[in-house]
């Protein structure tokens, strides 16, 4: 099995999709000749032509709105938003249009658009190249929100998203784009949506994480092992629709929960997880559900590593719930 970075794995998924399905079109800013600013689409225009891998004018509402029109007409567009921080001009197209087209047409139309965007901090990108806005999309009925944490998952989840009929927000942890190289199956490889991955099995505490916070959580879990605590790390992979049963099964098994995300805390995705656990697994809990998150501030440039949750912060939360 070949070793790939996440960038290569996503590129491989797009190549498989473009090869196998004539309906697939890739569009966005700089995705063509330049291969994207992170080189995710490198070589695709040369292989599939400028019509199917299209550089667009610089307007996110036009990119997503155009992709919606393509999907209505029967295509499978994959729209790239260069950084998720630039997605807000397309926010209305995503939440008012893309998410609701099937429902508001009573199933006459579907809108299988994939919106890919790198998200998250850790690359010295400052306020407008580092945000984690997943909660905005999780709040919108009709959207599927996917965040991979490994190269193999990035490929498999993207290809699974392209096989579905629903619009998908596919957020890529840019900090992990090239930092990890891992085995990725060749050819068509899909990973089912709405299924968690148990990244590490454990007995005493559950850490719920996704994207770039999965390796951070695994590092903390390994450290906890040295103190005799067996920590389970659940990689959510799809935030909405959530694999709630798997989350609850882990919580019921361990009785302790730490939730980790780099997005700000208030009304972040961790709040939804906490509420779910309180409603459905309260009697299993041995300790309060803790959240380790970004702060309720805009994303800082110089102090980004103080802002971002890291293994020591997760370890501190683990210590708190384990000694509660």
């Amino acid at each position: 099995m070949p070793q790939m970075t996440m960038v290569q794995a996503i590129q491989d998924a797009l190549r498989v999709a473009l090869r196998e399905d004539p309906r697939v079109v890739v569009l966005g800013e700089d995705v063509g000749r330049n291969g994207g600013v992170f080189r995710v689409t490198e070589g695709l225009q040369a292989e599939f032509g400028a019509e199917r891998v299209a550089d667009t004018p610089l307007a996110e509402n036009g990119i997503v709105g155009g992709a919606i029109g393509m999907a209505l007409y029967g295509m499978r567009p994959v729209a790239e938003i260069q950084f998720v921080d630039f997605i807000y001009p397309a926010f209305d197209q995503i939440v008012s249009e893309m998410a609701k087209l099937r429902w508001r047409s009573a199933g006459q139309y579907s809108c299988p658009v994939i919106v890919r965007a790198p998200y998250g901090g850790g690359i010295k990108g400052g306020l407008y190249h580092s945000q984690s806005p997943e909660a905005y999309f999780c709040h919108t009925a009709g959207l599927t929100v996917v965040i991979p944490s490994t190269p193999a998952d990035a490929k498999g989840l993207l290809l699974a998203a392209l096989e579905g009929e629903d619009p998908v927000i596919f957020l890529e942890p840019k900090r992990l784009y090239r930092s990890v190289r891992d085995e990725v199956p060749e050819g068509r490889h899909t990973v089912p949506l709405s299924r968690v991955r148990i990244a590490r099995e454990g007995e005493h505490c559950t850490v719920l994480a996704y994207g770039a916070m999965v390796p951070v959580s695994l590092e903390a879990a390994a450290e906890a092992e040295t103190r005799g605590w067996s920590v389970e790390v659940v990689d959510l992979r799809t935030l909405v629709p959530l694999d709630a049963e798997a989350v609850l099964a882990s919580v019921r098994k361990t009785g302790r929960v730490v939730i980790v995300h780099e997005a700000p805390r208030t009304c972040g995705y961790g709040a939804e997880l906490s509420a779910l656990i309180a409603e459905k697994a309260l009697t299993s809990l041995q300790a309060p559900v803790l959240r380790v998150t970004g702060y309720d501030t805009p994303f800082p440039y110089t102090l980004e590593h103080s802002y971002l949750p890291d293994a020591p912060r997760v370890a501190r939360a683990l210590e708190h719930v384990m000694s509660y």
Partner: protein
Amino acid sequence: MNAAPLQLLDPEGRLVGEAPAVAAEDLRRLFRHMVRMRLLDQRMLSLQRQGRIGFYGMATGQEAAITGSAYPLRDTDWIFPALRETGVSLWRGTTTREIVCQLMGNSGDVLIGRQMPCHFSDRRVRSVAWSSVIGTQLVHAMGAAWAAQLRKEDTVCVGYLGDGASSAADFHAAANFAGVFRLPVVFFCQNNQWAISVPLSRQTASEGIAIKAVAYGFPGVRVDGNDLLAVIAAMREAVDRARSGGGPTLVEAVTFRMGGHSSSDDPTRYRDGQLVEQWERRDPLGRLRTWLRASGALGADDEETWSKEIHEEIGAAITEAEALPPPPIESMFADVYATMPPGLAEQMRYAVAMGEGQKVEGVFPL
């Protein structure tokens, strides 16, 4: 660009240019359709005033623009309408009964009560579902045209907008992309002079809407939107251009919204009544009637006969629609996702168990 709108039939019903080639029987059908739209507006506004439907957006005064924009299209073309273009769907084959059911949001509604009245869509006539957010459908028209171009199909997509939407970001993006990729799309603007209470002079400092096309690199044309013949001529040229690979066109039909923005709006708060009287003299039905009678295409009794037929059709549609129950509670949860996720299925079971489906009957808050 000449800012004076193209006119072929003057307000007095005199032919002042070369009429587009339209078969006499089609002219009769077109006139009948305009009468049908006007009568449907009258009857539906009346139903709204009686509290039998919740909302209505009239197209009165804009029948020529709407009908003329629909006529040159093929059945295989796609339309991306907004509030005042239900008449396009009606022309293409949607029935009066389906429209009345949509206005009532009942179980006979194609959209099973999911959208406000007048937010109609019908896949059978390739009319795409739209939101109330202004101008958002224009990028979809652009994208669908892009897809048609990629598939090398000769479909034309029409994105409808009003003068207000010409200020929206999506109009700019749609026109810009359409120009760059030379897409087979027509942007059809019904410039009815008013976006609720805000006049055209507060939407743009340019001389009308059509001139904006120049900046996007494709033709814009201004027509008298109350002149069916001029609208057909301009739209036909635009559609032919799109179909033959010549790229997009922006057609601006200069017309006037004779009523309020909707049944919830009182235009006397912001608009001079004299202006309305002026536009009454430019009525699209009146001039077409005069010309068709003079040319012998319309007989003395035709309109009366048609009006009677149409009233019967609408009356029957209302009777049938009012007998239908509201959609079942379960319908609210379908179509959110292609397959209902377990969490949503749980919410549906809760709603059913709570008897939520019993709370809707006869409730149309005004």
